[in-house]
């Protein structure tokens, strides 16, 4: 409990709007910010060895694609990340790194494993006790929620602006991207009563008290009725609800058991409504949601990783392999920075996706039991 406020303070991600500032500032002297030169094809990190402690990375995106920057511990456990670095923009990431080996990654286009480099942090590092490993899981996942939430608000704002401006094509492009951030953190969002149904409810879930609204109402108007002229209030309400869910999500501390169940629930989402095309039935952008759910599941598992490695290393290996298989299967349907539409996949291709998700979800369903054991 005592550590929590400290960690929150440490992982504050500050976005510095620096449009136009493309100077190749490589100052990064000892103690200063570490420059990260990100482009569509490269990710040059100013240093590859650091002393244990808090460091600031300054990421400048000189490419044409929106990028993200991550510092990963083993198994892609997120130590810090900054999302949605648009071309020309520069952002800061402040992250506390105990001694160990890490990887940095830029993700131009915001998908895939990204452009990786090793990062070694020296200093003394005492092995974690089991309890400390579990306590870290909560903190680690909080960092993930924080960065995802901020990107969610930014991208939803863009989407809502396009909808209110009547720009159908732009709205269609932004729809799956804004949803990506929501789908990654959906297990947290679902904690807060009516907010998830208001944001993400489907037409057949609507009731007199909770009429059809949110992302899917606008989706229907974009793709099916092709008329968004009356969606201004729906769009405004969506942004209000997203901001509220984000505020609550950032304040929420998920227990290790909640994380384990969240990781499983995200895959259940994939199996039950993304592979079938039920979720995005008008736009057929289900594979964006699919990838986002898998990302979110992986982040939750990664947060638990130190504890899992102590208790059941075989399960960790099994899950790692299964995640790789999902990534490889999904990669078959990548189109540019996005994905094929769900209704473009054959039954055999959908079964291939279903098989790898089942293969992953079964070992992931065992995590909760491992965590719960004393």
């Amino acid at each position, binding site marked *: 409990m005592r550590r929590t406020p400290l960690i929150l303070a440490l992982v504050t991600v500050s976005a510095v709007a620096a449009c136009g500032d493309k100077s190749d500032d490589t100052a990064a002297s000892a103690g200063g910010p570490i420059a990260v030169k990100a482009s569509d094809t490269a990710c040059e990190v100013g240093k590859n060895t650091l002393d244990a402690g808090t460091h600031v990375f300054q990421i400048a995106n000189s490419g044409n694609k929106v990028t993200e920057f991550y510092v990963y511990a083993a198994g892609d456990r997120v130590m810090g990340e900054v999302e949605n670095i648009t071309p020309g923009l520069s952002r800061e990431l402040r992250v506390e790194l105990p001694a160990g080996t890490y990887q940095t990654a830029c993700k131009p286009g915001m998908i895939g494993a990204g452009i990786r480099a090793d990062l070694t942090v020296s200093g003394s590092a005492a092995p974690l006790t089991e309890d400390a490993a579990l306590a870290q899981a909560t903190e680690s996942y909080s960092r993930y929620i924080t960065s995802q939430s901020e990107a969610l608000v930014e991208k939803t704002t863009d989407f809502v602006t396009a909808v209110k401006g009547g720009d159908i094509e732009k709205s269609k492009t932004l729809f799956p991207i804004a949803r990506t951030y929501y789908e990654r953190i959906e297990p947290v969002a679902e904690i807060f009563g009516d907010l998830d149904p208001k944001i993400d409810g489907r037409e057949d879930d609507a009731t007199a008290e909770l009429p059809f609204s949110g992302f899917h109402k606008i989706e229907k108007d974009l793709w099916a009725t092709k008329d968004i002229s009356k969606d201004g209030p729906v769009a405004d309400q969506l942004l209000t609800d997203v901001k509220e869910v984000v505020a609550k999500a950032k304040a929420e501390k998920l227990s290790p058991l909640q994380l384990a169940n969240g990781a499983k629930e995200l895959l259940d989402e994939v199996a039950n409504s993304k592979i079938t095309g039920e979720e995005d039935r008008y736009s057929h952008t289900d594979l964006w949601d699919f990838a986002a759910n898998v990302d979110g599941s992986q982040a939750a598992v990664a947060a638990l990783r130190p504890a899992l490695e102590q208790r059941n290393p075989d399960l960790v290996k099994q899950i790692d392999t299964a995640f790789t298989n999902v990534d490889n299967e999904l990669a078959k349907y990548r189109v540019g920075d996005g994905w094929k539409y769900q209704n473009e996949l054959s039954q055999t291709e959908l079964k291939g996706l279903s098989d790898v998700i089942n293969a992953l979800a079964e070992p992931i369903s065992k995590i*909760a039991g491992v965590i719960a054991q004393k």
Partner: protein
Amino acid sequence: MSSSQVSRRRAIALAGAGVAGVAGAAAIGGALARQDSAPSAAPVADQVAFYGPVQAGIVTPAQDRLHFVAFDVLTKDRDRLIQLLKDWTAAAARMTAGKDAGEVGAVAGILEAPPDDTGEAIGLPAAGLTITIGFGPTLFRDATGKDRFGLAARKPAALADLPHFPGDTIDAALSAGDIGVQACANDPQVAVHAIRNLARIGMGVVSVRWSQLGFGRTSSTSTTQATPRNLFGFKDGTANLKAEETDLLREHLWAATGDGPEWMAGGSYMVTRKIRMLIETWDRTSLGEQEDIVGRTKGEGAPIGQGQEFDEPDLTSTSILADAHVRLAHPTTNSGAHLLRRGYNFVDGSDGLGRLNAGLFFIAYQRDPRTHFVPIQLNLARHDAMNEYLRHVSSGLFACPPGVSGPDDYWGRALFA
């Protein structure tokens, strides 16, 4: 370990001891009395031995219910496949003994973890459950000819792909498979529970390709059983191979040393065919024509021209028509070949055109399909008057290895040795 040793029946009895209230105790007592009223020759009367020289579920008197599943193997890792076969064998040994699929059980584990048994068979007896496994041609070589697990040299010649038979309307998605598993029981829920738990244990290593439920046996595999009826309303399997016919079984059912690879000695080859019956048009066919097509009477099941079901058909007589089913399927028409049939009636709802999607899920075991099922089916497919009312929609072929000798053995051990 403690809970794994407790059968589902016993678990209920133990639970009963803790149930307060007359109604609860009476209900449980009643259930036990019902189950225990069966003859008590074996410790659990409705349990079929899992271990033995041959797999159970072949000459075992045909149970009433079927759940059949065909799996595709997903993994490329031979060791993972072997581990799955070991895990499956252990789960099958437990389930056929009326126990839970996993060692912990459906309700004995911690609340935070999913149970290692799915639970729908809690309180149900073993119900004569047998689980029988077979390996399909594609396990040895895939469609491109690749030797997937180093087994190609051990593929029996008898496991050659079945030919296309005249009139076949086979749906590839409902056919073949790397591994076939037949679960038979006298309670449909017990059969479904068995397949469901095997599929779950196999997640990530195998994937369900297709599966089929059967609700009523259409063959007798023992002289102790009455002959059942198929959905044409006729007795089916009168002339089937039976468990008591040991000489015929040796000659026609079991693969022997010298037939092919040694790992199949004591095994048998299983052919599956899902045969849709065009029920509605059959039902408006006259009784006389129905009997002519089958070559037997509908009531008694006697061959045309005879009085009793088990009378031998007189194939020299023209009263059994040239295209009658009984004539074309008879061993004397097929170089003496006998099959052990073990099929089940199915109704998969209706077909959207107001017709029952119904028929026979045909299963036949034999020593060599090339000398048994293939020539018989070629003969039937070319000439059988019944074809007007039949559509073969699925086809499968599996090499079923010999039995599992004990807890240290597993399905297919000799194949992978």
